[in-house]
């Protein structure tokens, strides 16, 4: 999908993560703010080791209080049941009427493993990460199959034959993975989007192949546009190797943003490649440096808009996933400053033309893999 002047549409997402917020109201408020900016989606990080409520539950609570914005909780797959995870994500899609996504992540630590007492974290971290992402790929795979295990027209309510469903349109998935197996079909009928949007942070090697194979949105943490472009090219290339159209994958640059300094001069970290490159590309006076969560942008909302426009114009990314360091303050500045400016320049939507997250992202509703193969339950 392209904008009138031939450039791909810009996609923007924001993280709602707050320090120790256990209430519904603050999450609803932030999501509504992001929706005012017509952002594609909001994310809510989650792990069994982070203080906070169940992320998918929180975004389900947010769903009826919002109307258009995509809702993407992190749901980890290492200690959870794949069958439950896919059912919960499908249900989020139903309660939000087609706005659900799922950020897939793994649990790497022994600390998390002890909360379940079922398996241990591997003592050898790199081998462990590889195996965990292998498993995550299998979970992503089986989730797609289970979402497809009901064809869209399976419910028939045929009074003449007394049948509620046409069972030829329901399918066993008979999935055998390395660490689990699932019979199927799902308990939940195929969700409104067909497949809720799968999001994977593709920065680390083991996750990158999984992202290329299964993700609709890949997040990358990079230090400059050249690196972003290289990663995006690699992801698109690998996706094609897996038989996917590279255009079915959106690559968003993950950036932590601190807009607290207004339009002041840049931080000590301003000499970082991210900043310098953004200058070369026409970025403004804001600065960025690496933080634990990835690169940090510190500066004003106007310069952030410059940076986003420059990177996007240079085909370094399909968009940005922005994590505000102070959600209330920074999200407001992001929406009223950065987004407003991008909209003013015609680079970002001013309203939602579609109603589902897939529509915001310009991604087609996927065909059902079982419908294509023909029905035999």
């Amino acid at each position, binding site marked *: 999908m392209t904008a009138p002047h031939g450039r791909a549409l810009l996609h923007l997402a924001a993280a709602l993560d707050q320090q120790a917020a*256990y*209430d*519904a109201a603050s999450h609803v408020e932030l999501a509504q703010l992001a929706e005012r900016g017509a952002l594609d989606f909001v994310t809510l990080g989650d792990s*069994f*080791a*982070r*203080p*906070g*409520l*169940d992320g*998918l*539950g*929180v975004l*389900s*609570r*947010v*769903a*009826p*209080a919002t109307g258009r914005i995509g809702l993407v909780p992190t749901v980890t797959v290492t*200690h959870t*049941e*794949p*069958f*439950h995870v896919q059912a*919960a994500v*499908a*249900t*989020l899609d*139903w*309660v*939000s*009427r087609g706005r659900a996504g799922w950020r897939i992540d793994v649990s790497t630590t022994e*600390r*998390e493993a*002890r*909360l*379940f*007492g079922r398996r241990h974290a591997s003592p050898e971290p790199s081998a462990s990460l590889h195996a965990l992402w292998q498993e995550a790929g299998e979970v992503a795979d089986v989730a797609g199959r289970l979402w497809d295990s009901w064809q869209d027209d399976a*419910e028939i*309510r045929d*009074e003449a*034959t*007394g*049948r*509620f*469903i*046409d*069972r030829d349109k*329901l399918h066993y998935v008979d999935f055998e993975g390395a660490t*689990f*197996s*699932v*019979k*199927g*079909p*799902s*308990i*939940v*009928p195929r969700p409104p989007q067909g497949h809720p949007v799968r999001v994977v942070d593709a920065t680390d090697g083991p996750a990158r192949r999984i992202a290329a194979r299964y993700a609709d949105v890949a997040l990358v943490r990079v230090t400059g546009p050249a690196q972003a472009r290289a990663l995006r090219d690699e992801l698109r290339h690998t996706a094609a190797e897996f038989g996917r159209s590279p255009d079915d994958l959106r690559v968003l640059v993950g950036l932590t943003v601190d807009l607290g300094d207004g339009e002041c001069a840049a931080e000590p970290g301003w000499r970082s490649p991210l900043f310098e490159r953004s200058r070369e590309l026409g970025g403004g006076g804001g600065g960025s440096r690496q933080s634990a969560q990835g690169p940090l942008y510190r500066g004003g909302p106007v310069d952030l808009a410059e940076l986003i426009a420059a990177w996007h114009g240079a085909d370094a990314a399909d968009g940005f996933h922005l994590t505000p360091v102070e959600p209330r303050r920074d999200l407001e500045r992001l929406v009223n400053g950065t987004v407003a400016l991008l909209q003013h320049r015609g680079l970002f939507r001013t309203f939602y033309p579609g109603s589902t997250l897939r529509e915001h992202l310009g991604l087609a509703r996927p065909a059902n893999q079982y419908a294509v193969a023909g029905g035999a*339950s």
Partner: protein
Amino acid sequence: MTVRPRKEIHLAAHFPGVNNTTVWADPRAKSQIEFASFEHLARTAERGLFDFFFLAEGLRLREHKGRIHDLDVVGRPESLTVLSALAAVTERLGLAATVNATFNEPYELARRLASLDHLSGGRAAWNVVTSSDAFTGENFRRGGCLDRADLPHSRLRSSGGTPITRAAEFVATARELWDSWTPEGLPRPFAHRGRHFDIAGEFTVPRSPQGHPVVIQAGDSPPGREFAASAADVVFTRHGTLEEGRAFYADVKGRLATYGRAPEDLKIMPGVTFVLGDTVAEAQERAAEIRRRQISPQNAILTLEQIWGVDLSSYDPDGPLPDIDPDPESTMVQGRVRVGDPLAVAEKWRTLSREKGLSIRQTVIEASGRQSFIGTPDTVAAELDEFVRTDAADGFILVPHLTPGGLDEFVDRVVPLLQERGAFRTEYTGTTLRSHLGLAQPVWKG
């Protein structure tokens, strides 16, 4: 002589489920999946000042003769996710999710339930169920490692060397997690080492508004009763006659003292259906029509096959019952509980059919159940009240047969009469489900 204060009825609404109680062929019947249906029913229940809204669970689609059962409603969304969304469109209504303890882990489920309690301002409830069949297990990691102690009918107490069930330890462990933060909001590490769980760490959720979400236990078996008496706040039981209700009520309440609990600490709520009419005769006519819709010709044969355990598709639903005997060893039906003694049931049904001259379908309609309360709003209100006043129940979980409008008439016509009788609240006085049910805040065990 002391006068006992008038017992108030507790009411809950069951979203129509996947058995043949739900009439899906009615022109008024809407989606079983879309959020609008859940919202309609939950808002109706809240308008009626109900204690809570209840969702059942299924983890594997039912099968009949090796194929997915297609005659009743099939499929549903996942309970806790739906209830989290319903928390946004209701303010006081309790939100109860059925979640299987066999195919979950305490840390994750305790966290999801505590999250719902926070997100709803103290309205969460958990209906604890177990299932130990390998059939359901085929959808789960745990499916391959079920052990006998998962079975709900193993002994429940850890004393005397008999094993505690996984479900009982699961609930106890969840309570430890819910207690792990201090009431002042300080997280503290927990460690649980038991027969089924050996876990340690820190819970990520502060103590929730209710302290512990309300725990519901479904089922009538003796171990189930014992478990309810030891650990549950509400029993979801089968509805029977007034006498059966009183006997069950007395039995379960009588078990509470052993655990240092008072009779009012556990509410007994049978699941019931109802049919209303302007006259009793009209209500009965409507009830008969609903039964005919619930038992389609195909459903009559299927019901029979569930008892006989053999293929009866060649039989005419409008003809006589089969004279062959049931196969007690049959595995034809998967994903639902089979009747206890198929031979005896078959004999009973044959007798019924012979005596009244009933066809297969008529026999199934006659024998397989009736609506619990049929009458005018007035007679139904009086009957409900009698059950509660005479200690056959503390309240009811109403199971409407229509999605999503099946509760509308009850709320509009019966609730006001219950209120007039002084048997039901006229407003919510508290904000939490515990306060609606008159349950004390659990004591924090630090």
